């Protein structure tokens, strides 16, 4: 919550003073105040605050209109409506305009603090996910391969040759991770590598491609499951769960990694190489 930069939009200097006092008491920095819509838009564009408290009645417009306009310029800023009026119709309009929470005046200090904490908890959590997902997956894949196939296991950072796409080596698996934020794991290897691995693990040379596909599906599922458990252990609020794997087989398939925040690795083992991509994406904030 600390270091959040706030702008107060309210046509009443009294309300502005009350809100400022509450926000500053909680350690937030009030970087601007605006008494009308025009002023609010100009200041927000320039200052790009993290949070805006928005009154619903403004001399040159209303809070809904003002929020909608503001969010065109400051997409990352979160807006909390603070108004004496509150009914279902206006709440619905506020939601549609992109406002994240609605508080009724007179606002009590605890209520305001709780709303802000809830609103920004997702941000902090996403930061934790971004800082830790790479390690969690590397650890998960390393532990599995070391114990199941043994030998040398190395993970090297890998740069995709073409931006955002990967040409499949033959067999790929995609597993989704779903929780407060989202993610996806892709593992891709040649059918030969998959076959080598399943033969080694089961100590059975008669394994077929069909069985190798089953192995790869389960392998990816375990990697994702273990990594998600590690992450959930860091913070229970992640609530990450793994969706069933989809195995993709074919000679000429391109996988689109998309524009999510992701990292790619080449997993090197004695039995062959495998490509791994892990991506994370911020989950939607629900209405508070």
């Amino acid at each position, binding site marked *: 919550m600390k270091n959040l930069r706030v702008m107060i939009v309210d046509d009443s200097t009294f309300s502005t003073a009350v809100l400022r006092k509450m926000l500053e008491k909680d350690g937030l920095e009030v970087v601007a105040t605006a008494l009308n819509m025009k002023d609010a838009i100009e200041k927000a564009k320039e200052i790009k605050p993290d949070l805006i408290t928005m009154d619903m009645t403004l001399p040159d417009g209303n809070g809904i209109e003002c929020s909608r306009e503001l969010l065109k310029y400051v997409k990352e800023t979160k807006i909390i409506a603070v108004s004496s009026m509150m009914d279902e119709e206006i709440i619905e309009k506020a939601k549609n305009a992109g406002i994240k929470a609605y508080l009724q005046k007179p606002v009590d200090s605890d209520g305001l603090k709780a709303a802000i904490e809830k609103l920004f908890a997702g941000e902090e959590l996403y930061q934790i996910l971004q800082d830790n997902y790479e390690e969690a997956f590397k650890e998960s894949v390393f532990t599995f391969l070391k114990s199941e196939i043994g030998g040398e296991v190395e993970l090297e950072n890998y740069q995709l040759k073409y931006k955002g796409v990967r040409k499949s080596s033959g067999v790929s698996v995609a597993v989704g991770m779903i929780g407060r934020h989202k*993610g996806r794991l892709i593992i891709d290897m040649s059918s030969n590598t998959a076959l080598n691995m399943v033969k080694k693990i089961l100590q059975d040379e008669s394994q077929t491609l069909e069985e190798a596909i089953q192995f790869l599906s389960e392998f990816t599922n375990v990697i994702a499951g273990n990594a998600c458990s590690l992450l959930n252990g860091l913070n229970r609020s992640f609530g990450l769960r*793994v969706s*069933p*794997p989809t195995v*993709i*087989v*074919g000679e000429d*398939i391109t996988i689109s990694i998309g524009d999510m925040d992701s990292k790619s690795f080449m997993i090197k083992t004695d039995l062959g190489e495998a490509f791994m991509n892990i991506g994370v994406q911020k989950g939607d904030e629900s209405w508070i």
Partner: protein
Amino acid sequence: MDLKNINPFIDAVTEILPQFGFQSLIQKGFSEKSKKIIASGVVITLGIVGDKKGNVVYCINQEGAKQIASIMMMGMPVEELDDMAQSALSELSNMLTANACINFSKEAVNVDISVPTLLFGENIELNLNKEEIICVEFDVDGIKMEICVALV
């Protein structure tokens, strides 16, 4: 054939596609598959978890995918399936699946969806490892779109 898992997706298509300006939307027949789907063109798959667990797969041929991307991008010509077109199609699959989730929740079934994974190529074999995959085909302004749902 039990259609209760696919109906929320049909309703999603009927609700979402016209909003993008698609003119004609004809629902064709259902089909049943087991474990595997083979498709060529563009395939988008999303994971589903919650009260039901599984996957949904959207299949469109390459030309159809470009046309859909073009309509979604306000008629901008789409010569090849570039980043922008891929992103538009992923977003469409996201919207359709999210809408289907809302439809599920009306029946007190709560599910969440993963980010979409988009693939393209020829003879793509998808193993969903579910005995029963229910598919429905749509004709969207002359473009064939198939939705396959494997949910338990």
